[in-house]
């Protein structure tokens, strides 16, 4: 984090965390890495880690300086079970935001959530 402009308590409008842009980033990466992939209990742990890292790199490069990022990836096998995921955040609603995307294919489902928190 660079130490210039430390008096900024809100991001400039152009530099705000834009959920739509981040959602696009997530979509591209997930579709690229998971289309046609079958659920395999040996490979999925590594796959979920690399997916989380790639999404984080991509969002970082999209230019949200001064934002701390948390990326969470959940991959599960599709066997007709019910799953529900929810989240709550205690943060500054003016500057912080999140984006999420869900991907489904025949054998697995994948959920990616990116939370961005402004560093004052």
């Amino acid at each position, binding site marked *: 984090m660079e130490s210039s402009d430390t008096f900024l308590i809100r991001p400039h409008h152009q530099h705000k965390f834009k959920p739509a842009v981040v959602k696009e980033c997530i979509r591209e990466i997930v579709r690229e890495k998971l289309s046609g992939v079958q659920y395999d209990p040996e490979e999925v742990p590594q796959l979920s880690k690399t997916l989380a890292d790639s999404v984080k790199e991509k969002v970082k490069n999209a230019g949200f300086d001064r934002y701390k990022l948390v990326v*969470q990836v959940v991959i*599960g096998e599709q*066997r007709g079970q019910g799953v*529900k995921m929810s*989240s*709550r955040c*205690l*943060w500054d609603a003016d500057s912080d935001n999140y984006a999420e995307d869900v991907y489904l294919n025949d054998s697995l489902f994948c959920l990616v959530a990116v939370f961005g928190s402004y*560093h004052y």
Partner: protein
Amino acid sequence: MEEFHNGNEGSFNSDEADNIVKECIEGVVGADDYSQNLVNKWTAGIVERCLTQLVKQGKSYKYIVTCAVMQKTGAGLHTANSCFWDTAMDGSCTVRWENRTMYCVVSVFAVAIA
């Protein structure tokens, strides 16, 4: 300015957060069986309870709490996180809990404020 910094030991205490989260899950879901109708209420309840308990600690952190509840059918589930933050001040903790009919995975991310 001195009083402001006294409450912080300097980094996130994940053991304490672990205990708080476990108590919240037991409190909300405890001995119930998986039910499609109630799952919405459960996830919301768990997440809100965890958040209020964490905030009661009074530390200067922003919190992100996520909760996934899944029915036990023999299917596999994997979660992974990747975070871009200040490793000295920020931290996370993940709690896996299960009962006879479901799994519950709760993740807490704490991001320091300045």
